[in-house]
C-alpha cells in the first residue's frame, strides 16, 4: 500500500477564546503555518472581516498571507440559522439567500468545501427540512464555483442514522458531485470531555441534560467514507505522553490509509480554554497524527 495520501490542516475554530482577545487573525494563521500544517479552515462569520462584505484590501491580504505561508484554504464553515427571526422559522428563500452568500464568499476566498451548520427540529438533531430544498436550489451555483457543500456528521449524531441516510439519498437522487459529507472525529469519542473555562453558560432553563449517545465504532466509517470529502480532526486533549484518551486515532487512520482516502485532516481543538493552550495542543495532536501515520 502507498504512503498516506492525506494532508494536514487546522481550523481556526481551535483558537476560540483567544481570537480577538490575545491573538489577531494574523497571529492565528501564522501559528497554523508554524506548526507545519498546509490546510486552512475558517468560520466565515467569525474570521472574515466585516462579514459578509470584506474590504478588498482584506481579501488581497488573505491571498498574500496564504501564499507567503504556503497555506491552502480548505473548508469554510457557514450556518443556516433557521431560528434567526423570533417566532418563526426562516423561509426557503431566506435559506437559499444565506447559502448563496456563503458559497460566493467561500469561492472568492479560494475554498473548495463549504460546511453549512443546519438548524435542527428534534431533540435527536434531525435537520430542518429546508436543508434539502434550499441545497438543491444552490447546486448549480456550487458547480459553477466548484465548491462542494458538505454538512457534518457531528456528535451527538452517529453515522448509522436517518440524517446520514438522507444526505446519501440526496446525492443519489440529484447525481451531484458538489455535495458530500464532512466527518467530525468527535463522533468516535470514547468518553465525554467536560470543557473547562470560558464564560459560564446554561442552556434553556438549565434542566436539560446532554444527550446519551452510543460509542460509534470506527468501522462504521467504512460505510460512508467514499462520500467523505473533508475531516474535522476534532480533539479535546493530547496528554504529556502524546496519548489521546478520547479519540481512537490509530484505528481511524488505519481505515483512511487502507481505503486510500485523500483530503485534509483539519484539526479542531475543543478542549479546555486557557491562553496558549490551543497552540500547544495542536502541536501535540499533529505530532501524534504524524507519528502514527509513519507506522502505516
Amino acid at each position, binding site marked *: 500500500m502507498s504512503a498516506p495520501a492525506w494532508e494536514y490542516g487546522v481550523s481556526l475554530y481551535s483558537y476560540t477564546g483567544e*481570537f*480577538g482577545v490575545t491573538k489577531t487573525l494574523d497571529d492565528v494563521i501564522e501559528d497554523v503555518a508554524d506548526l507545519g500544517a498546509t490546510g486552512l479552515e475558517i*468560520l466565515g462569520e*467569525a474570521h472574515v472581516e466585516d*462579514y459578509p462584505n470584506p474590504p478588498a484590501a482584506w481579501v488581497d491580504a488573505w491571498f498574500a498571507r496564504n501564499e507567503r505561508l504556503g497555506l491552502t484554504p480548505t473548508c469554510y464553515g457557514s450556518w*443556516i440559522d433557521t431560528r434567526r427571526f423570533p417566532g418563526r422559522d426562516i423561509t426557503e428563500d431566506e435559506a437559499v439567500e444565506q447559502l448563496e452568500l456563503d458559497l460566493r464568499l467561500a469561492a472568492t476566498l479560494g475554498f473548495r468545501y463549504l460546511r453549512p451548520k443546519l438548524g435542527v427540529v428534534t431533540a435527536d438533531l434531525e435537520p430542518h427540512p429546508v436543508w434539502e430544498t434550499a441545497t438543491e436550489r444552490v447546486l448549480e451555483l456550487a458547480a459553477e464555483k466548484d465548491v462542494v457543500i458538505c454538512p457534518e456528521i457531528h456528535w451527538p449524531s452517529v453515522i448509522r442514522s436517518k440524517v446520514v441516510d438522507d444526505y446519501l439519498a440526496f446525492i443519489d437522487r440529484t447525481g451531484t458531485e458538489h455535495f458530500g459529507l464532512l466527518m467530525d472525529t468527535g463522533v468516535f469519542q470514547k468518553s465525554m470531555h467536560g470543557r473547562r473555562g470560558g*464564560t459560564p*453558560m446554561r442552556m*434553556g432553563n438549565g434542566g436539560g441534560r446532554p444527550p446519551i449517545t452510543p460509542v460509534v465504532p470506527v468501522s462504521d466509517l467504512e460505510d460512508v467514507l467514499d462520500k467523505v470529502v473533508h475531516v474535522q480532526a476534532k480533539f479535546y486533549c493530547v496528554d504529556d505522553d502524546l496519548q489521546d484518551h478520547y479519540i481512537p486515532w490509530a484505528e481511524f487512520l488505519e481505515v483512511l490509509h487502507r481505503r486510500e482516502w485523500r483530503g485534509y485532516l483539519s484539526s479542531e481543538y475543543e478542549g479546555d480554554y486557557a*491562553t496558549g493552550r490551543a497552540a500547544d495542543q495542536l502541536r501535540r495532536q499533529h505530532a501524534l497524527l504524524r507519528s502514527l501515520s509513519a507506522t502505516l
Partner: protein
Amino acid sequence: MLDEPMIQTGGFRNTDGGFELRLRLPYYRGLWANLLEGATVEVDGEGFPADAVRWTIGDRSFTIADLREPSDLRWPVDRPAVLSVPRDEPLAVGEHDVTVELGIRMSYIPEELQPSIWIEQRKLVITR
C-alpha cells in the same frame, strides 16, 4: 484586542440619562443580531430588564424590539457591543457589582435547550 471576560473592563461609565457598559460576544462566531434574545443587567442588586437596554455595535444602534424585524445588523466576534442603560441618577464613583445575562438563540441545538444564556458577574469601577 478585547478583555477575556464577556463584560469588558473599559467602557463602564455614566452618561446623560444612565450608564454604559461593554460586552464581547462570548461565542465562537459573529452573529446576525436578530439572533439576540437580549441582555439583562444588574448593578449592586438593581435590575434592568432586557427591553430597557439600547445596543450599539459599530455605528448602528438598536433595541431588542427592533430585532423582531429582519435586519442585516451583525455582532462580530472581535468587536464589543455597547449597552446603554437608562437610570435616573448617575452611578456613584467607585466599585460596583455588575451582572449580565446574555441570551442567544442557537438554531442547531434542540429547542428545549434554548436559548443559550451566558451569565457573568464582575466588579467594575466608575471613575467619574
